[in-house]
Structure formats: C-alpha cells, structure tokens
C-alpha cells in the first residue's frame, strides 16, 4: 500500500442515502403530479416550471458566489424548491412573476438564513406567500384545465363564496381550477406514498395533518352538511395533498422529534380547517405550514425525547 493511512472517526461505512439522493427522491415522487399538471395546463405548466427553476437556481448560484462558497446546486435542494414553487402557482402566472418568486424563495427564504438546512420557513412557500402578497390578483386568477384556459374559480372558492361543491371524482383526477401541480389529488397521493414508503420523508406529518383535517372537517359537516364541505372534499380540494405530502414534510422546516412531528401535523391541520371555514381566504394550506414552521423551534425545544433508560 502506498501513501498515508486515512484517519477518521467511526463509523467507517455509510448508508447509501445522501442529501442529493433524498432530493432526487423528492423530485421523482413529484413526477406524477407534474405530469398531471402538464397534462391539464399544457405549456403554461412548462413555462412556470422553467421560470421557477431559473429563479431558484440562479438565486442559489448567486448566493454561493457572493459568499465565496462552492456551488451547492448539486445537492438539488434548490431544484426541489423550484419545482414545488411552480406547482403551487396559478398556471397563468406571468413568467417574470414566477421567476421573482423563485428568487425570493431561495434568496429570502433560504440563503439569507445561511443556506441548506438552516432556514426556518419553507422556501417555496415563502416565495409563494410573497407572490400572494405582492400580486394578489395574479395569484387568485385561475383557469380551467384544458387547452382553452377559460377563467374559473377554484373548488374551494366555489365552496366558500357560493357554497357549491365540486364532484369528488373531478377533485381526485384534477379536472378543476387551481395551482399548476395541486389539482390532481390522485397523482399527488401516488407520489406521496412513494416518497414516504421509500423513506425520503416521514409519514407522521402527512398522517397527522390529513387526519386532523378530516376529523375537524367532519364535525361541522356532520351538523350542517348543506353549509359545510365534507371531510373528503377537504382532503381532496386545494393544496392539501401537495402540502401534506411534500411541503409539510420538508425536513428542514419541520420538527425533528417524533412527538413534534405529530404536533406539527395536528397544528397545521387545525389551522387549515379554521382558515378554510372561517378565514377570509378560501385556502389555508400555505399559511398553516408557514405558521407551523414559525413554531417549529419551540416545538423541537419542548419535545426532546427522554433518553433510553430515562424516567418515563
């Protein structure tokens, strides 16, 4: 043998999964949702994807250059942010707004906090919340799936303002108005299950999140089914599927403790139902996740598990 021996602290073997592979796994899990989005919204979806990716990747690259650090594009987290951002924007959003959203997502949502792993808030949702506040009209203009792109209202808005329910099958398939990647609950469910079963994300948050929404949504519905939507409608409509499987599971911005992850899911679920039923906005998934992101440090702090052999 030539050269010097390598010294390092144990373990001297490592699991296969690294950050890049995790992110790749998320991207793969998103494929069904993206395919559905492109199928329904045609080139709008592609433009949106390209603009968001351009925004997030350029922000990530610039931040590395400004901070004189090696490029972190390779870890693919900025790509995940870009794709997820595109999926939560209205299909007809102008490309420049999508690009701006991408820049804000990674620039403001992630890099000013120090980059990967250090941000408090979900970057894609920071981007979206910013766009929502900056261009509320653009962000609440929806088109129906299909080539004509006629303006429609989202199922949740129909429910909230007109008390009109959308057939569940349409929600499942995704033939409704809404964000580019959120409409097809089925495609997202497939991707989400893949994500969880392959171990890229933890199952506790989606489970508790969706469960809470279903349970809480069922209570008013049980009393006034004419006025309130069914729990199934709650689960399938809006961004809940996308949010629960892909955004509430962002490891960086969610608790690391098991108890904490249940708390996160339950808290987010409560917020969604409250905002949907009584808030000014028809949808609350984004806000619910951002608000729970904000309390994640507190959750983590107060749910440190008792070590093995500690008093129980």
């Amino acid at each position, binding site marked *: 043998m030539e050269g010097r021996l390598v010294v390092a602290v144990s373990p001297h073997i490592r699991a296969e999964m690294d950050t890049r592979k995790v992110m790749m796994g998320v991207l793969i899990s998103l494929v069904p949702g993206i395919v559905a989005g492109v199928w329904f919204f045609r080139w709008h979806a592609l433009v949106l994807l390209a603009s968001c990716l351009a925004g997030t990747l350029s922000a990530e690259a610039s931040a590395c250059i400004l901070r004189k650090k090696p490029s972190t594009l390779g870890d693919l987290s900025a790509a995940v942010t870009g794709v997820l951002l595109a999926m939560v924007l209205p299909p007809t959003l102008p490309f420049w707004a999508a690009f701006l959203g991408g820049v804000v997502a990674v620039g403001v949502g992630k890099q000013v906090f120090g980059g990967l792993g250090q941000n408090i808030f979900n970057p894609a949702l920071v981007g979206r919340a910013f766009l929502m506040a900056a261009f*509320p*009209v653009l962000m*609440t*203009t929806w088109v129906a799936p299909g080539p004509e792109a006629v*303006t429609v*209202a989202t199922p949740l808005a129909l429910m909230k*303002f007109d008390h009109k329910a959308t057939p569940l099958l349409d929600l499942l398939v995704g033939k409704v108005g809404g964000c580019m990647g959120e409409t097809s609950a089925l495609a997202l469910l497939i991707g989400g299950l893949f994500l969880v079963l392959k171990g890229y994300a933890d199952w506790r948050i989606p489970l508790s999140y969706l469960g809470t929404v279903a349970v809480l949504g069922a209570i008013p519905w049980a009393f006034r089914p004419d006025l309130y939507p069914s729990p199934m409608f709650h689960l399938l409509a809006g961004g809940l599927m996308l949010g629960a499987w892909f955004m509430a599971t962002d490891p960086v911005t969610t608790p690391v403790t098991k108890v904490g992850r249940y708390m996160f899911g339950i808290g987010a679920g409560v917020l969604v139902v409250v905002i949907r039923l009584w808030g*000014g906005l028809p949808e609350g998934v984004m806000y619910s996740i951002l608000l729970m992101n904000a309390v994640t440090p507190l959750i983590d702090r107060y749910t440190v598990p008792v070590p093995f052999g500690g008093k129980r």
Partner: protein
Amino acid sequence: MSVSARMMLVLTVVGVFSGLSLVYMDKYAEPYIALHKKEAVREAIDKVLPGVDKVEEVHRDETVIYRALDSSGKLLGYAFLAEGPGYQGKIQLMVGVAPDLRRLTGMEVLESVETPGLGAKITESSFEEQFRGLEAVPAVGYVKAGRKPAPNEITAITGATISSASVVRIVNEGLNEVRRVVRAGPPDCETEATIKWKGGKK
C-alpha cells in the same frame, strides 16, 4: 429641598406648562380642524348628491342623516354615513339616496384599510360609479366579474369579493336605517343644524 418634594414640584410644573401650552394650541387649531371635518363631509355629500346647495343635518337616536336641498330648496335626496367591517378593517362610506329611498345617487368611500391594489379598489371611481343610479330595492346586490348584473346589482372587484360584498352590506344596512328614520315621521322637526353651502357647488 427633599428629593420627593422636588420630584413633585418639577413634574407638576412641567405638567402645568404642558397643559397651558396645549390649551392655547388647541384654541388655535380647533376651528381649523372643525372646518376640515365639515369640509370633508361636505365634499363627500357633494360627490354622492351632485347639485346640492344646502344640507340639513337630521339627528334621530344615534343616527345622523343629511337632507340635501338644491338651490331652490327642493329635496335632492338624503346622504348618510355608514360603516362596517371590510376584509382588513373598518370601511366608512358616504351614501346618497334619492328622496324616494329606492335609488342610490352615489357612494363614496371615506375610510378603508383594504389591501392596496385589491380591496382598495373600492375607493376607485370605477367601483364607486357603479352605485350612481343603482336600484336599491329590494336591496343592493353584487355579482362576480364576468356575469351580468341586474339593475340593483354591482359587479364585484375581481380578487376582492369580500371587500365588495362588505360595501354592499354596509350600504344596505345604512339604507335600512335611513328608511326607518325617514319613515318614522317628518324628520324636519328634529333638524339640528344646517350646513349652508357657501358658494354653492364648487
């Protein structure tokens, strides 16, 4: 002199001086402020009831109604302030209604804190104009953009349905109150003040 005594003395003296100077300042400013207030009301009435020359303030219970008369003394209509919650916060309106109380003559948003660029569009004339000549029976209503409004309906602002609906609701509530007051009897007897338009319509 003990510290306690000095504390009391200094603070009291400062307080007295403060009170003194503010009384004078208030004396100076008060008339102007009152004037601006009236001016604001006047201008608003002017907008919602074009051609007004003289206004009588009618008080009943808590409600204030402005009776607007033209230069010949003919009743042009009533104007009233109405307020209620919007999307972000309070919205205050001045509404003008024809003497028969069935048709609006105009609406002006005096105060609102709706989202700029969205709910704040209720203050734009394109929105306010919709109320001019609007049928008010049985009540004012709204439709979403893209649909055809009935004669008693306005078109809501896209992306600000809540604000639009709030305005409509506030108008209706105010209108009902005015109807109650006007129908309750000849209001003239309770006239408390009359605002005379100095130079007529500007």
